[in-house]
């Protein structure tokens, strides 16, 4: 268990190389990958989220922890898949049409991935057709929309309306975020959820797929 504690610490402290090395030796020693994920790695990222909410961690700390998590995940992923394990859910994420800002979107994607979700990153300037395509071809549970500008917020509504028009709005959860976006606006356009930051986006996504 000493090693496993090292993995936990490596993720919390954002030490990707150690996280990867410890995950490799744990797998080699026969530790079940599901146990590594659920008992060590995800709790480590939850602790990172807690530290962020408590203003002890800032954006750089979130990012390096998420990176350490990702490196360890890459080690155990083939074993998880071989064991038939499923991700917490699949999220198609993108910055909406007309908006090219992606730091916030990338941060949310990194935190969701660290929270056990599989991420389909559609990039920036993403229109309804691309989100619909991702929904149709990738078995997406959640569609996550980002906008940094008040000028591009209407694109969020257009995308949700296109999901309605395609008759699939109730088959997928749609969440929204970004600096000018509010919970009130999320409600107004019929989104399933809003998160103020990347850390609480994980809690939100888990609650929407019933994994919270």
């Amino acid at each position: 268990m000493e090693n496993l504690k090292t993995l936990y610490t490596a993720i919390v402290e954002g030490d990707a190389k150690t996280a990867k090395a410890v995950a490799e030796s744990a797998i080699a020693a026969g530790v079940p990958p599901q146990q590594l994920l659920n008992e060590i790695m995800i709790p480590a990222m939850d602790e990172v989220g807690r530290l962020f909410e408590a203003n002890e961690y800032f954006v750089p700390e979130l990012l390096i922890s998420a990176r350490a998590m990702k490196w360890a995940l890459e080690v155990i992923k083939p074993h998880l898949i071989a064991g038939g394990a499923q991700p917490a859910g699949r999220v198609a994420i993108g910055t909406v049409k007309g908006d090219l800002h992606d730091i916030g979107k990338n941060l949310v994607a990194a935190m969701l991935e660290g929270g056990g979700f599989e991420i389909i990153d559609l990039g920036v300037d993403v229109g309804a057709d691309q989100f619909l395509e991702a929904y149709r071809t990738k078995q997406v549970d959640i569609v996550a929309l980002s906008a940094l500008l008040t000028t591009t917020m209407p694109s969020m509504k257009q995308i949700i309306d296109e999901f309605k028009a395609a008759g699939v709005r109730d088959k997928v959860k749609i969440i929204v975020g970004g600096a000018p976006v509010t919970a009130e606006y999320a409600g107004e356009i019929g989104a399933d959820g809003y998160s103020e930051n990347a850390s609480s986006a994980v809690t939100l996504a888990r609650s929407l797929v019933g994994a919270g």
Partner: protein
Amino acid sequence: MRYKLISCEVFYREMCAVIAQAPHMVDVEFLPKGLHDIGAKGMSARLQAVLDAVDVTLYDAILFGYGLCNNGLVGLTAPAIPLVIPRAHDCITLFLGSKERYQEYFTAHPGVYFKTSGWIERGAPTGELSQLSIQHRTGMDRSYAELVEKYGEDNAQYLWEMLGNHHRNYSQYTFIEMGIEPDDRFERQTEADAAAKGWAYAKVQGDMGLIRRLLHGEWHADEFLVVPPGWRVVARVNERIIDAVPPATA
């Protein structure tokens, strides 16, 4: 008429040029451009404090040299005289002369970063506001050297890639020429910046019309919001951009 203009300093040269020829008497107070970077709540609190400090017995109205500015105007309450605000997402609408022209240009060129004399002279946050900016408070404004010192070389490289370039998806500088510049120095500066980044460069003619109508008291309802005394500013995600609601409304 006597007006009090409270304006972002990004319009310094434009406002001064129009005030000089305005048919009304206009007192002006410029506020730092860095208010834009401290977040909506911080910005509106500071603007409200400035509004509340205006001696309303001296003026017929207060004019705002601001757009919605990422919700930085949300929640502002007009004092005992009307508050006049352009219906604009941000300053670019005021430089281009109408929200329709801005929307049209923005839709056709999503990767454009605009430059004007004010953006060049006064674009970077300075003084105490630079310490209050969201970038600073979330740890996103650190230099590469600072990242290396705090997180080590390996993590610093990754963080620099993730946080170091806010404009990585931009591809063009557009200089908006307002006609009040002393010479072509700002235009040349923008062109040089574009070349240095390998971006495209374009120049468009600005339009002083909206700023002029603000200061001349020509407040058409589709271009300006006149907030009655005691009413509050709310954001609208439609072509109105902002509206005023009476005090009792939640």
